[in-house]
């Protein structure tokens, strides 16, 4: 072999070795196709003075660059600065009000006092950024240039010190009104997410956005006054014993826990198999009562064996092979709600079970549910990694879904957002919508339909008032004594202005209220239709037209779209697709296109058109059915025969019956002496129509009085270029009894379902039922008014 050949071989070997090394490194470091799943590990120490609402903290942040870019700066969130003044982006967009409160006190802020990388102090090089709205007063994002570029696969260690004024809890985080309860969320300087090819994804804290962070680990030590000992809850698990000295208690938490860091997640297929988290929250309240229970899969499997079988069958698992790990469920309850601890735990475990079998097991050893103090209730209803806040009240029942609904939903976020870490700024619907879909499915399976209550001074009575009160404005209000406007100087008076106790007496609720039960899945439809055509679902969270559009498009609309997707692909492919997506994107940051691709891959279906129509546009659909039927009219007139035209007269008897009619058509009786009249065929005119640009394949079912059923499908292709279809039904001896569009009720998208069905008869019970309720309500209401007169 000559020198040239040797050199070529050597070069080839070197290149091959280099590629192999790079591939190994990429596999080792988890550098996957998404180019944006870096790792951030935090070690934090914080000293908190609740009475003064101050915090001093230090953190050591180790960031591993898993992108393919060389990164020369770091961007951070300082979320608490959203509550620093009325001109922050958060408060500006919220109109100065948070959860109904005008924020004019209880301000909070964070100030970084030191950022060091090695021996370089960088605090003076901090630059505040406003990448979304350019608002200079907003200080929730800053960047700092790093002394050295971090190469792909490289690490940087940053030591950060900061001090903070903790806000009064008005949204999610801070100290309660009475100064005892703390819920600390996004409370430390938190790194943004670097996305290869895009740069730092570090949005401002908007009124309608949540969070986005890199997966990693947390080692957090909290220093609090001694009264909080044994009353602290946090992400992850407590490590070691708390230390009490000099009136202070020091507690350490690891998230994930030590045990979890060594646990191999059986579900994660696209990234590291070791559990990670992307945030850390904690709570403390000297009054809370802590209860624990171990979630055991077998207990729930015994209750819902068919559900487990369904999932195993859908995903091709061996029967009996599906299992979930034990999880310790810890509840921190307020003393007055201690009796509801079991309900919180039950709802949490329901989420762990159903979400676990549908989307993959919860991989951590513990989850914590927090019942916020009354004076800190604005912290309720929010999710953080392995810890979430619920929210309840006195005098509730499970059937009213409080606190069950919020508990299932927030625990569900451990899966959507906690494990599959979508960008909540730019695609909030990827977690909120998916979670809304799943929590409705859990609630209806475990608790049945939701029952409405009417509260009288906090005391609930089942049911709702049917009809509205007498008008109370203008002359009507004056004549009925409800509201009399006496002008600017005297103001308005309400002689008969009602309070809760008087309302109870006026309403006589046991006698006059009507039961109201709601299937949460259909409530999702109602939510979707509240703003069906304002914005596409796939919109940045802060760019929806208004908060209503944000809520509709992030929560119920994606839920409805997913639910209806099952009608397109079928139950099994749907489940397979969702599970595949969940497994593939655990501990990673998916965007909508990642979900579309992953779902198609997992389900084996190609529903890109569906995703494009439903998530990327504001297209809607409204089917309707119209039915007419009549007996075949007799042949009369001049009929040509062998001998030419001859007159044919109408046969004696009743006029041909036509529908729609309120009474069944009466067949004329044969005259005496005449042979029985031949059976008359019915002819049918059944037309299904579509409004809206959305074309979805839909079934139509026609049932006849004889019991026969004919089914039709109006395909997508057939709908192209037309918005109606006359069903090809041959004349027959029986009348149509009913016609149903989408008989299995798989679609939850139709704008108006009142015209999706037709019956030959009329329901008499419902009109009587609701008019009776309205009448009885008013009879007693008027008695109350008459007793005021005398």
């Amino acid at each position: 072999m000559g020198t040239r050949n040797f050199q070529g071989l050597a070069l080839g070997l070197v290149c091959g070795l280099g590629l192999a090394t790079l591939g190994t490194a990429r596999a080792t470091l988890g550098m996957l196709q998404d180019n944006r799943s870096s790792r951030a590990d935090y070690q934090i120490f914080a000293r908190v003075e609740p009475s003064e609402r101050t915090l001093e903290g230090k953190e050591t942040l180790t960031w591993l660059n898993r992108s393919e870019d060389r990164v020369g700066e770091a961007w951070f969130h300082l979320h608490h600065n959203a509550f620093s003044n009325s001109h922050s982006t958060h408060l500006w967009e919220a109109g100065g009000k948070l959860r109904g409160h005008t924020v004019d006190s209880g301000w909070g802020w964070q100030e970084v006092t030191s950022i060091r990388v090695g021996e370089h102090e960088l605090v003076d090089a901090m630059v505040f950024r406003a990448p979304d709205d350019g608002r200079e007063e907003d200080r929730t994002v800053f960047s700092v240039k790093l002394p050295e570029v971090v190469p792909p696969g490289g690490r940087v260690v940053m030591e950060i010190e900061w001090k903070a004024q903790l806000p009064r809890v008005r949204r999610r985080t801070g100290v309660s009104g009475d100064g005892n309860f703390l819920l600390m969320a996004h409370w430390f300087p938190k790194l943004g997410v670097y996305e290869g090819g895009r740069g730092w994804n570090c949005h401002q804290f908007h009124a309608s956005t949540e969070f986005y962070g890199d997966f990693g680990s947390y080692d957090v030590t909290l220093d609090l006054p001694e009264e909080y000992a044994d009353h602290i809850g946090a992400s992850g698990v407590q490590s070691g014993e708390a230390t009490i000295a000099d009136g202070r208690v020091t507690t350490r938490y690891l998230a994930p826990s030590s045990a979890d860091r060594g646990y191999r997640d059986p579900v994660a297929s696209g990234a590291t198999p070791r559990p990670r988290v992307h945030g850390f929250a904690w709570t403390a309240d000297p009054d809370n009562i802590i209860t624990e229970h171990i979630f055991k899969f077998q207990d729930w499997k015994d209750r819902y064996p068919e559900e487990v079988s369904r999932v195993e069958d859908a995903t091709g698992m061996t029967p009996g092979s599906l299992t979930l790990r034990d999880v310790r469920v810890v509840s921190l309850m307020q003393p007055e709600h201690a009796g509801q601890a079991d309900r919180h735990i039950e709802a949490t475990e329901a989420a762990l079970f159903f979400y676990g079998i549908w989307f993959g097991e919860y991989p951590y050893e513990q989850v914590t549910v927090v019942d916020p103090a009354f004076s800190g209730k604005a912290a309720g209803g929010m999710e953080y990694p392995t810890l979430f806040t619920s929210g309840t009240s006195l005098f509730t029942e499970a059937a009213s879904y409080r606190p069950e609904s919020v508990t299932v939903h927030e625990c569900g976020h451990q899966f959507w957002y906690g494990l599959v870490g979508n960008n909540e700024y730019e695609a909030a619907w990827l977690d909120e919508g998916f979670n809304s879909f799943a929590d409705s499915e859990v609630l209806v399976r475990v608790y049945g339909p939701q029952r409405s209550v009417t509260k009288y001074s906090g005391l609930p009575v089942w049911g709702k008032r049917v009809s509205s009160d007498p008008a109370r404005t203008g002359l009507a209000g004056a004549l009925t004594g409800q509201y009399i406007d006496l002008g600017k100087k005297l103001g308005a008076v309400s002689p008969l202005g009602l309070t809760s106790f008087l309302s109870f007496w006026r309403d006589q609720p046991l006698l006059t209220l009507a039961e109201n039960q709601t299937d949460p899945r259909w409530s999702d439809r109602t939510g979707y239709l509240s703003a069906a055509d304002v914005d596409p679902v796939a919109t940045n969270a802060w760019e929806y037209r208004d908060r209503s559009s944000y809520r509709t498009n992030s929560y119920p609309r994606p839920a409805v779209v997913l639910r209806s997707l099952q009608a397109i692909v079928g139950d099994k492919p749907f489940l397979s697709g969702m599970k595949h997506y969940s497994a593939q994107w655990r501990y990673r940051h998916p965007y909508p296109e990642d979900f579309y691709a992953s779902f198609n891959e997992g389900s084996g279906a190609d529903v890109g058109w569906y995703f494009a129509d439903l998530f990327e546009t504001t297209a809607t659909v409204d089917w309707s059915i119209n039915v007419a039927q009549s007996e075949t009219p007799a042949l009369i007139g001049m009929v040509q025969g062998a001998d030419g035209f001859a007159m044919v007269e109408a046969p004696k008897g009743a006029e041909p019956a036509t529908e729609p009619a309120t009474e069944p058509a009466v067949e004329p009786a044969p005259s005496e002496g005449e042979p029985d009249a031949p059976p008359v065929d019915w002819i049918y005119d059944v037309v299904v129509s579509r409004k809206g640009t959305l074309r979805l394949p839909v079934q139509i079912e026609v049932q006849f009085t004889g019991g026969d059923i004919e089914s039709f499908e109006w395909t997508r292709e057939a709908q192209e270029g037309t918005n109606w279809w006359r069903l090809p039904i041959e004349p027959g001896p029986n009348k149509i009894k009913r016609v149903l569009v989408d008989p299995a009720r798989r679609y939850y998208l139709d704008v108006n379902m009142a015209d999706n069905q037709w019956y030959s008869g009329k329901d008499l019970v419902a009109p009587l039922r609701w008019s009776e309720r309205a009448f009885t309500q008013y009879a007693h209401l008027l008695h109350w008014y008459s007793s005021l007169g005398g």
Partner: protein
Amino acid sequence: MGRTYLTDEPVPTGPLLFLRSIRKVVERPPLWLITWSLIALTALPVGVVWNTWFRDAVAHRYQPDAAVDAGDAFAWDDIAYSLTASFTHDHAEGLSNLNKATANLGAVLAFAAILLGVFAAGGWLQVILERTHGHSLRRFFLGGARYFWRFLRLLLLSAVLLALWNKLIYGDLWDKYVLGGLFEVPSSDWKTLENQSSEWGMRRLMWLRDGCHALGFALILAWGTFARTRMALLDGTSVLKAGLLTGFAILFHPIKTLRPLFSIFLVELVLVTLLLGALSRELEDVLKDSPSQGIVAAMLVVGLVGLMVREILRGARYHASVKVSQEIVRRPAQQPDPWRAVGGPGGPQYPVGEGEGEGETYVSL
């Protein structure tokens, strides 16, 4: 037995007066049947409007007779028991218009009911005071017309008092002196009470406020009942004078005046609110599994029976207030009734009969 001022008959006003009053009113079915039917007829237009709307909305689009099989997919739209989320959404505009129409109609009907109440109060007082043995209905209508304008003026005075009370309890004074002064709630938390360390703390403050208002409201209504009775008893025309004197009367005889009314309230609470209410709920449960026109009709009957009981108890309130007033209301300082010995027109008058004696049941038109 208490001392009487205006009659020589013993008038028991002990703790069980309310039972006697209820019995006496029950013995006059034409009267409470009239008031009951007038209220029911006043409410009827609402029922008619709702029935008409629902018949049109339901038409051929909802499953007939709500005969729903278990697990039937169409159960999603069974509206005989509960108005589903879908129905409520799909008919949102229609329901909104229906409710607006009901609200407007309801205001007119409520005003009519108030006037009916004014009239009925006069009717009850006329019949109770006259102790008629016949022509009760005629006397009822006579009394209603006779006292109508006086009682209407009293209604206006009552409205003023209720408005003042409402302002006192729910206005700035309560916030400043009770919440801020007594309970040290900072002004920024007066509306939400979020400085309270527990929901119970908040709830107690709310109940205190609501309870004070309800109590005052009830006292004003009780005062109105006795003021009307005084005016009828003395045939007075001055609303202010009657109101003032009634106020003092209640102040000096709180137990005697308020006990029978409170007892009647308890009877209403138990019979109507709780017992009939529970029965209505049972029927609702039956409706869930077996919706039928019969069950709905039964619920209607229960509601009407409840209304009937309430009308009876309203009459009983006036009977009790008359009996108490006859004991505590002093005759005006004037010459004794000159006709007492001589009798009215037509010569000396002799007692015709025992009137409302114990054990007698007398029914007349």
